[in-house]
């Protein structure tokens, strides 16, 4: 029974890999220096900025909220955090657009469609904090209180208590969430298209635009960018997993002998 599920899943999941194979096929013989123009460079800078800021803020707030729920056992917070999860990204983008297009709370304070992409970051943080919360709360649910108590008896500072008792267990879910968020935010289209500016555009928006307007030759630029970005993320995932593997294995299995 689970064997057939496995085969079906593998068949379905082979499709995105064929997508990447297509990208590789298309970019054979591509002149990579074409990507060295102002639009792509500015796009890369702004994408890194928005992605890292949104991801880090979401991770920090999400973890902090999970921790608060764990320590105070407040179920109201947990159920409240469900609400943003019901809103699809497109809808969230539009809600923020409606609120911020005229400036909020009063004219000119925080506006959508401006250079610092504050509203884009805000939208992503609003949507992703519940996601991080969900990923992390599972870990906290099975956290062994013994570690926490032990850290307290050792008279460690609160920060050191966190570092010793909780952080080792958080590494895996946070790493997972980090890369999922980075992959999603950096190459999305719908949200930054609605809430961003004309120049510089985020990678996903610029790639999609170059694909669908102008001469077909521009399409190769987009394929090339999509390919290197995907490979970059793959390398990041595999690399960070390799680097933390030893430590994670020790945490999961404990030090023997």
């Amino acid at each position: 029974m689970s064997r057939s599920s496995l085969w079906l899943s593998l068949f379905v999941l082979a499709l995105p890999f064929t997508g990447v194979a297509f990208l590789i096929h298309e970019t054979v013989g591509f002149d990579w220096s074409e990507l060295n123009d102002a639009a792509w460079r500015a796009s890369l800078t702004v994408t890194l900025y928005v992605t890292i800021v949104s991801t880090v803020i979401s991770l920090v707030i999400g973890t902090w909220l999970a921790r608060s729920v764990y320590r105070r056992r407040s179920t109201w917070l947990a159920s409240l955090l469900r609400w943003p999860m019901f809103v699809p990204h497109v809808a969230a983008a539009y809600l923020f657009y409606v609120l911020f297009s005229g400036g909020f709370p009063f004219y000119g304070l925080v506006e959508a469609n401006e250079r610092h992409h504050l509203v884009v970051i805000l939208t992503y943080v609003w949507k992703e904090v519940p996601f991080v919360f969900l990923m992390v709360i599972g870990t906290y649910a099975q956290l062994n209180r013994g570690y926490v108590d032990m850290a307290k008896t050792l008279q460690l500072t609160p920060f050191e208590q966190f570092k010793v008792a909780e952080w080792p267990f958080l590494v895996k879910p946070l790493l997972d969430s980090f890369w999922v968020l980075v992959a999603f935010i950096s190459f999305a289209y719908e949200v930054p298209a609605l809430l961003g500016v004309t120049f510089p555009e985020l990678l996903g928006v610029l790639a999609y635009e170059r694909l669908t307007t102008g001469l077909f030759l521009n399409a190769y630029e987009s394929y090339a960018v999509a390919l290197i970005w995907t490979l970059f993320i793959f390398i990041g995932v595999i690399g960070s997993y390799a680097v933390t593997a030893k430590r994670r294995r020790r945490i999961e299995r404990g030090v023997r002998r």
Partner: protein
Amino acid sequence: MSRLLVAGLILFPFIGLVLAFPARFDWDEAIGNTVVYVIVLGFVNVWLGIGTAWWLMFTDSKWKTPVEWFTFLPLFIPVLASMFGMYIALAPLGLVGTHIGVGLVLLVTTLPYSIRLAYNAMYVIGRPLLEQTLTLAPWSRFGLVLFPLLKETIRTIVLFSTVIVLSQFVLVQLMGAGLIPTVTTQIYQAYAGNDVSLALQNTWVLILVPVLLYVGLGGLFGIWIRLVKGRLQ
């Protein structure tokens, strides 16, 4: 007081929704398509997600790690990047512009999350407990033990797959060749257009679908649990 502040921070974007409550709910093809996709994909995700995660949990084959990475990496392939390759792969099979084709690519975007969520949940429950269920026949295994244990996870899987399906505009436009309208394809054209109240009305639908599904499933599972508990007496 601080509770109110936190609640305010989390809920403030919903203010926009209050500005336009839908005057009428037309049951047109787009909403029909969307609801069917959401339900079917929710079901398939739960089935394949739990099935695959089960295999990953219990297998001793040497393929375990490669399969784990194979199911794991698509999480990091942006939809925009794999879209065109998937189109070319599925076009010779005649699946472009068909419900099966669109369903398949939507499954591609949701399945990695489902497998991950199911695996994490089963890991937390622990292999020893799950192994006990192997003595039961499959249907009893699922109905009496696994579903009650995993009901929260199932609801979360359905929620995730629903929200992801509802977010897909570019993908459905490409694979469906414009022939398959969903609430999202219609709404995106409204977002880029002139009519603000129309856009807000459609946004209501986008948000209500996952909410109703989640609450509905909660009710359904509640009934199930009561039935199962009854058998214990």
